[in-house]
C-alpha cells in the first residue's frame, strides 16, 4: 500500500520506512513558529528547566496579536517575550514594524519549506500546507516541549482527499472554495484528519489562495491540510528560500489510501458567505442581500495578502464605502503593505473612506483595533465567526472573500461582488 504526502512526511521525520493512520510516532520537527501570545510557551520552557532550545535557527517568532500594544499588560507581554528571545538566542524574531502576521510573514521570509514538519502555537499553523509542508497547530506546553526536545509525539492522521475540478467563475476565490468545502464537511467532518487538496483546478490557484484554503482547514476540525507542491510552489519559493536550503518535494502514491474522497466542481461555486456563528454555516452571498452591515474587515492570516488587497481595490476604485459603515483594511505584513503602497492600492482604499491598519491580528480575534459594539453586524475576510469573537457577545460576524467584503462595504449590505462589477 502506498502512502499519502502527509504519511510520507511523517515517516521521514520519524525515521521510519512507512507509517499507517492510527500509529503513534515521535517526529523530528524542522521549524517551530509562534507569536506574542507564545510567551506562554517560553514560560513553560523555563518551567521544564530547559536552559537551551534544540536549535535557535529553527524557531521563528513574530509580534502580531496585540500589536501595537493596546494595554499595559500586552506591552509587558511583548517586553517579557523579548527577554526570552535574547536568553534562548532565537534567531528569527520579528519585532513590531519589522514583520507582520505569522502565517503571511514566515512563508514570505522563506522560513517554511516543502516537506518540513512545522509546529506552531497557533491553530492556523496549518496554513503552511500550501507549500507542501506538514504543519500543525498546538498549545504552549506542546510547543515548549518541541523547543526543548526538537520532536513531538503525534498520531498519524487518516487523509481525506478533496479533488478540485472545473473552472472557476469570475470573482470566485480560494476563500469561496474553502467556505464551500466547510459547508459540506461541517465543523467536525474532518476531525483529526489531514486534508489533501488536489485535482486539476489546483494548478490554477494562486499561492495566496492556497494559503487561504489550507489556513481555514482547521475550521472543519482537521489536523492539517496539504497541497502537493508544483511549479507555482517552486516559483513562490525562488528568491525567498536560500539556494542551499533543503527542500523535499513529496507527492502521494497512486495507491495511497484515503478515508474519504470528495470531488468539488469549482464551476458550480458562487461567492460564499459563512453566517453566524459557525464557519460551516455557509450560504451563497446572493441569498443574503437583505443583511445590512456596520463594519467590513479585510485582512488576517486568511486574507490579508497582496492579491486579496488587489481584489478589494478593483471593487473600491472610484467608489466609496457606504455612509454608516466602517471599513478596516489590514495588510498582513510590512512587505505586503509596501507592495500595496507601490501599486497605489492604499490610495484607493483611503479615497474610498477605508481605514488602513498596520499589520496585526487585532480585529480578527477581538483583541483590539476595531471591536464590534452591541448587536453590530460585520462582514469579514477573517476565519472565525464564533459568538462574540470580534467584540460584543451579541454581535454577528459573516465571513467572506475580499471581493465580497469590498462589495458589501460600498453597498452597506451583504453583496455578491458580481452584482457591483457588472453594473
Amino acid at each position: 500500500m502506498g502512502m499519502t504526502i502527509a504519511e510520507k512526511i511523517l515517516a521521514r521525520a520519524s525515521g521510519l520506512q512507512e507509517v499507517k493512520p492510527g500509529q503513534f510516532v515521535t517526529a523530528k520537527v524542522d521549524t517551530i513558529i509562534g507569536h506574542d501570545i507564545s510567551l506562554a510557551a517560553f514560560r513553560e520552557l523555563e518551567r521544564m528547566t530547559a536552559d537551551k532550545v534544540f536549535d535557535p535557527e529553527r524557531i521563528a517568532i513574530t509580534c502580531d496579536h496585540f500589536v501595537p500594544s493596546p494595554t499595559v499588560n500586552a506591552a509587558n507581554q511583548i517586553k517579557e517575550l523579548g527577554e526570552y528571545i535574547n536568553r534562548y538566542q532565537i534567531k528569527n524574531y520579528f519585532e513590531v514594524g519589522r514583520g507582520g502576521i505569522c502565517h503571511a510573514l514566515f512563508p514570505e521570509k522563506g522560513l517554511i519549506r516543502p516537506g518540513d514538519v512545522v509546529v506552531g502555537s497557533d491553530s492556523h499553523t496549518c496554513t503552511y500546507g500550501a507549500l507542501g509542508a506538514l504543519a500543525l497547530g498546538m498549545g504552549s506546553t506542546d510547543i515548549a516541549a518541541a523547543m526543548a526536545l526538537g520532536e513531538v509525539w503525534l498520531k498519524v492522521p487518516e487523509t481525506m482527499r478533496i479533488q478540485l475540478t472545473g473552472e472557476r467563475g469570475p470573482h470566485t476565490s480560494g476563500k469561496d472554495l474553502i467556505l464551500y468545502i466547510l459547508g459540506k464537511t461541517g465543523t467536525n467532518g474532518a476531525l483529526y484528519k489531514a486534508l489533501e487538496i488536489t485535482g486539476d483546478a489546483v494548478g490554477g490557484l494562486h499561492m495566496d489562495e492556497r494559503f487561504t484554503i489550507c489556513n481555514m482547514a482547521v475550521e472543519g476540525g482537521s489536523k492539517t491540510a496539504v497541497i502537493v507542491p508544483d511549479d507555482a510552489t517552486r516559483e513562490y519559493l525562488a528568491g525567498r528560500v536560500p539556494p542551499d536550503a533543503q527542500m523535499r518535494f513529496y507527492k502521494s502514491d497512486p495507491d495511497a489510501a484515503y478515508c474519504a474522497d470528495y470531488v468539488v466542481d469549482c464551476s458550480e461555486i458562487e461567492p460564499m458567505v459563512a453566517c453566524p456563528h459557525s464557519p460551516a454555516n455557509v450560504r451563497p452571498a446572493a441569498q443574503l442581500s437583505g443583511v445590512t452591515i456596520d463594519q467590513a474587515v479585510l485582512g488576517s492570516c486568511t486574507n490579508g495578502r497582496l492579491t486579496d488587497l488587489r481584489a478589494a481595490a478593483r471593487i473600491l476604485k472610484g467608489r466609496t464605502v457606504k455612509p454608516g459603515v466602517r471599513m478596516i483594511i489590514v495588510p498582513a505584513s510590512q512587505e505586503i503593505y509596501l507592495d500595496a503602497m507601490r501599486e497605489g492600492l492604499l490610495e484607493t482604499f483611503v479615497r474610498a473612506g477605508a481605514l488602513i491598519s498596520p499589520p496585526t491580528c487585532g480585529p480578527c480575534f477581538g483583541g483590539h483595533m476595531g471591536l464590534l459594539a452591541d448587536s453590530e453586524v460585520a462582514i469579514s475576510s477573517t476565519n472565525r465567526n464564533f459568538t462574540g469573537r470580534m467584540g460584543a457577545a451579541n454581535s454577528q460576524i459573516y465571513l467572506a472573500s475580499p471581493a465580497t467584503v469590498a462589495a458589501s462595504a460600498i453597498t452597506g449590505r451583504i453583496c455578491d461582488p458580481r452584482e457591483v462589477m457588472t453594473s
Partner: protein
Amino acid sequence: MTGGRVWKFGSDVDTDVIIPGRFLADWNKEPEKMGQYCFYGIDPQFNTKVQTGDIIVAGDNFGCGSSRQAAPVAIKSAGIRYLIASSFARIFYRNAINIGLPVLECPVLVEEVNEGERLAVELDKGEITNLDTGKVYRFEPLNEMVQQILDSGGLALYVQKRLKSVLNSSF
C-alpha cells in the same frame, strides 16, 4: 463514592466562548486567576456557580477554534475536575492533557446524562458511574502517551524529568 456535579453543554463549544481573545494579554502573569473568566463569552457568571470537583459534559468537537491554552487553564482553575464529551477538537485535547486536566470520550453517557446529576470517575478502571441513576459507563481508554503525561502531572513535568534523566531516551 463522591461525585462531581454535571454542567451540560452542546456541540462545537469553541475556545472564544471559553476564554475571549481580549483576555489573552492578561493570562501569562497569573494563569490560576483565569478561572474567573471561564465561559465569559456566554455566561460571565459561570465561575460563581461552579463548585470545585464539578464535571463538564458536552457533545462533539469540544474546544474547537484557537490553540489558546488559556481555555483548558480557565476550565481547570474554575474548579472543573473532568471534561467528558462525545469528541474533542484535537488541539484542545492535547492542551488539556498537557496541563493535567483529564478529558474523556464517552458518547453514550453524553446522550443520557442530565445537568445537575452527579458522576463519579474512576480513571484507572476506565469507568464513570452516574450516582443518580446507578448506571456505569466505560470511556475510551487513554493512549499510552497520554497516560504517561497525566501520570507525570502534565507535559512540563514529563519533559523536565526527561531532560534530567537520559538525554537521548525516546519521547
